[in-house]
């Protein structure tokens, strides 16, 4: 299988926010693609970002770095990053990294979009 295809990203605009849905594995192979898509959204003026992790099976520190970088960039511009629907294992990795202390993880995309 083509490694690039190990993660699929879909995105849509919901009100003032941009909703990203991830599927597959977010590791050092696939994280540059997500980094680029998020950077494009931010450079187009998006200030509210929701990332839906429902179908994400795996995350490594390379993926966490992209999330942290995006959170910092949005905060600088008075924007907001919210995460939702994390599988238990992915959530565990967020907790070990301590990211759950500054990034809210919500139960559904609707809950996250309401907070934007």
């Amino acid at each position, binding site marked *: 299988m083509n*490694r690039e295809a190990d993660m699929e990203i879909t995105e849509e605009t919901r009100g003032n926010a941009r909703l990203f849905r991830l599927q597959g594995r977010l590791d050092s*192979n696939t994280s540059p693609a997500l980094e680029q898509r998020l950077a494009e959204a931010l450079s187009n003026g998006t200030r509210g970002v929701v990332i839906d992790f429902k179908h994400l099976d795996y995350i490594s520190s390379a993926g966490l770095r992209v999330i942290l970088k995006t959170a910092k960039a949005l905060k600088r511009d008075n924007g907001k990053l919210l995460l939702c629907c994390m599988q238990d294992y992915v959530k565990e990795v967020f907790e070990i990294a*301590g990211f759950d202390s*500054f990034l809210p993880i919500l139960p559904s995309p609707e809950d996250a979009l309401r907070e934007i």
Partner: protein
Amino acid sequence: MNAQGCLVFELKNDIRELAALSRHVEALGRRAGIPARTLLEVNLALDELFTNIITYGFPQGGEHRIRFHLRADPRRLTIVIEDEGVPFDPVACAPVEAPCPLEERRVGGLGLHLVRNLMDEMSYRRTQGKNVLTLRKRIERQEPPACEAG
């Protein structure tokens, strides 16, 4: 030592080899009946260490091999990683800071922070021009391992 619970393989210093790494870990896990959660944690720890080796280990470039030995005993998984990269002791690396405000977060050392939390033991030695890292992880089984015929 049960031959079914042993696996030795080599990967090139190429990030695309991550797919092969996870396939090997899963194959051993199936053979040795290791719980899925434990396998995911081991997979992540090895991903982080392998990514570190290929990112920082060979500043001169070129193709190199990284060797993995995995051994699954009934209650413990032992992993040895050998590489001929620049000397690097992940055990001696300082842990990342305690949780702090977003603006102050640094990303350096995050991978090793995950490894330290996911594995139960980690020891390092430099020998014959190689980094040799030994990792141990307890296997928490819900029930006794099933006996496999054949």
